[in-house]
């Protein structure tokens, strides 16, 4: 019996030391051997230059020898060159208020029975972090560990000078890995020159928008889907940046699967049809749970207004989501989601102008219309027209067009 126990102990010891040995390698690659910096973007303002790059899943693995994406961590590499005469302070919380501290990231990847390796991981990550102040005439670089975003990542790098002046650098960086909803859409060739209609006057535009179909359709065009309750005016990049700036996420495509853990934020949006094709782009804003999301589908229309693109869209708020079978239900008062995006763009200072036009057709709470999934919805029948802007617009600068009297301005709404 005694010898049996002995042997057991010996075997255990051997197994343990093997496990420890197996896990205990930590081989980060030197940063200049991983070519993520080729995708870096640079901005300058008042003698300060900031360069930023977002590492993909593979690059993070190579640089840190840790599977950071799996834990929801996304490293951003920053290089700050201070050519000013005063020092500047860098605030990582401005990049992401819920950032991970370097040693926290290290601790999340600690391994059992590997004190040496864990110390190595700690030291390495601590060294790679960037924070504090940058003296005049010096260059600092390092990583900030942020919460994972796919698609397009937006973040600010805020630098505070000794004179309390804040320099804000806003980056929009596309993260490799997610195939976004509009990846295969050739926007330049969607319409031939003859199909395009240009308007210079507001009256003509209004008419054209009123004449758009009330609703999107199913694939063979036999059934009506959700109402087209939104129009956005602005060129592609401006619209994209306005939505990303307001916290909307990109969505994936049907062809390439999105990881299960990322489904609720980035999973593809089911197709509705307009102009004989599914939406050109779709965005989503997720709140706490999958049942609490807003969806936005956009089609580039053949209409141009003063040279700017006119996007026709549909916005709705999910209140129930089932993956099996794939089914969802939208908030029956669809106008709620429309009012939401108006406020959302207004607060994120990307809204220049707005107005309401007819075209959807009213449906009351007692006589609702039906979505594709046979769920009821009701609406006041207006569609919201939004002009977005690239430069920030303050609250009081937003212009309201007096087309239809917006429903919330009516007395007994």
């Amino acid at each position: 019996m005694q010898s049996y126990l002995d042997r057991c102990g010996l075997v255990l010891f051997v197994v343990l030391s093997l496990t420890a040995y197996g896990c205990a390698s930590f081989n980060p690659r030197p940063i200049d051997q991983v070519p993520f910096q080729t995708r870096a973007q640079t901005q300058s303002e008042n003698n300060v230059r900031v360069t930023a790059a977002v590492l993909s899943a593979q690059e993070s693995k190579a640089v840190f020898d840790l599977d950071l994406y799996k834990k929801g961590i996304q490293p951003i590499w920053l290089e700050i060159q201070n050519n000013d005469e005063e020092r500047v302070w860098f605030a990582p919380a401005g990049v992401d208020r819920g950032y991970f501290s370097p040693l926290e990231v290290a601790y999340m990847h600690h391994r059992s029975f590997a004190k040496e390796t864990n110390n190595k991981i700690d030291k390495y990550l601590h060294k790679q972090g960037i924070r504090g102040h940058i003296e005049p005439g010096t260059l600092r670089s390092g990583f900030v560990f942020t919460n994972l975003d796919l698609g397009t990542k937006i973040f600010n790098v805020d630098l505070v000078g000794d004179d309390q002046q804040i320099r804000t650098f806003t980056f929009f960086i596309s993260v490799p890995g997610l195939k976004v909803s509009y990846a295969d859409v050739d926007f330049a060739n969607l319409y031939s020159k003859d199909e395009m209609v240009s308007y210079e006057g507001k009256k003509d535009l209004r008419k054209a928008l009123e004449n758009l179909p009330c609703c999107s359709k199913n694939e063979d065009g036999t059934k009506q889907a959700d109402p087209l309750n939104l129009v956005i005016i602005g060129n592609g990049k401006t619209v994209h940046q306005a939505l990303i700036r307001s916290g909307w996420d990109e969505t994936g495509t049907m062809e390439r699967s999105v990881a299960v853990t990322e489904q609720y934020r980035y999973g593809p949006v089911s197709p509705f049809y307009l102009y004989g094709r599914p939406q050109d782009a779709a965005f989503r804003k997720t709140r706490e749970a999958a049942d609490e999301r807003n969806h936005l589908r956009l089609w580039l229309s053949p209409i141009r207004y003063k040279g700017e693109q006119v996007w026709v869209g549909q916005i709705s708020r999910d209140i129930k989501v089932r993956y099996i079978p794939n089914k969802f239900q939208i908030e029956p008062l669809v106008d709620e989601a429309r009012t939401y995006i108006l406020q959302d763009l207004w607060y994120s200072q990307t809204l220049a102008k707005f107005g309401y036009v007819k075209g959807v057709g009213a449906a009351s709470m007692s006589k609702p219309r039906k979505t594709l999934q046979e769920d009821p919805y009701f609406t006041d029948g207006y569609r919201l027209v939004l002009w977005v802007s690239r430069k920030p617009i303050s609250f009081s600068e937003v212009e309201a067009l007096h087309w239809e009297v917006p429903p919330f301005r009516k007395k007994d709404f």
Partner: protein
Amino acid sequence: MPNTIRICWIILPLIFILFVSGCATFNPRTEEEVPFRERAQTQEKGNVQVTAAVPSAEESKRLFGVDIYGRGVQPIWLEIENEDEDPVYFLPLGLDPNYFSPIEAAFVNHFGFKTPFNEEMNRFFYERRKSIRIAPRSVMSGFVYTPVDEGTKAFNVDLLGEDHEIRTFTFFINVPGIRPDHQDIDFEALYPKAQIVSYEEQGLRKALERVPCCTTNKEGTEQGDPLNLVVIGDQDEVHNAFIRAGWDETEIIYRASAWKTGMSFLFGGRYRYSPISPLYVYGRRQDVSFQKARGTIHERNHLRLWLSPMRLNGKPVWVGQISRDIGVRFTTKTILTHKIDPDVDETRDFLIQDLWYSQGLLKLAYVKGVGPAPISAPRGNLTGDPYFSDGLRAVLWVSRDRLDMEAVEFIEWELPPR
């Protein structure tokens, strides 16, 4: 045997029927029957007056006929009185970016199967919503549905005028239901008058350098986490600055809070008001503590504050400690404990940014007093966690009202090395 099965088949549907009729009642009370408005607060700006009240979990249950807190929805009652010539518009997004639309709020509370009550509930929630437009010389009231915050609910009521200017009313409203740690402390009576010491700025710097380096255990025989924080402001200002920056209050330990902590510890939940272990300064445990939850109960920031006998030009001076929990760890003393980020300066500097971004920071400085501990020779806290530090403590002047981010003053007493 077949007999038992048959009885079973009779009893099961019976239980089911009882259960169904038991829960599927929808009996909301009127606002007059539930006196939550006794706690309402009113603010006035120009010709507009806003009154706000937050019903507790219990009150909401009676008001709406369903346990709406249990489903993650907290109603806020608003009354807006517009004595102006022009209408004003209420923006729910300014109150909470994750607000629920009325029917959505009703939907999450629907019973799991079709009942006539669901339709009724939709209508009920919808009819009680807060109207967006408030006509000139009129009063409107109703509910806005938001995610749940216990302890203190902080929110803005943004009203948009015809000129597209925004008028913001900021509310901090106490929600009955949890037992925050500071509620039983009589701050006025903590120190007799003779013990209070008043300073000017330079004198305070010297005094702060002499504050002990660290917290201790109850007996004062062992050193705990470093006192790396000084906050200057009266109780209200400190409370509001932290609440607005998204910090939560902490419950005292009692049966319900211990149960909730245990459950979230085991199942990785997110009990935001979990009690915090005591550390000691001035011979007593912390007076107030706040925490900021992130993903799980193991990832959160903690801070503890003690009211000191020092005053700066009449303002109370609080001594504090902040640390970042990064995981769980086994110890010989307490079996399980939270592991803190050994880089305690990183956590301290996070707080500075956090208050700065939430526009609650007025002035900022660093003073000596903690004593440096290099990364190669770390010190240990009470649970044996190592930490290292540049030896400085952050001094933060906080404000109740929002401040311009570019107006924050840095007093150059000390400069941290990195």
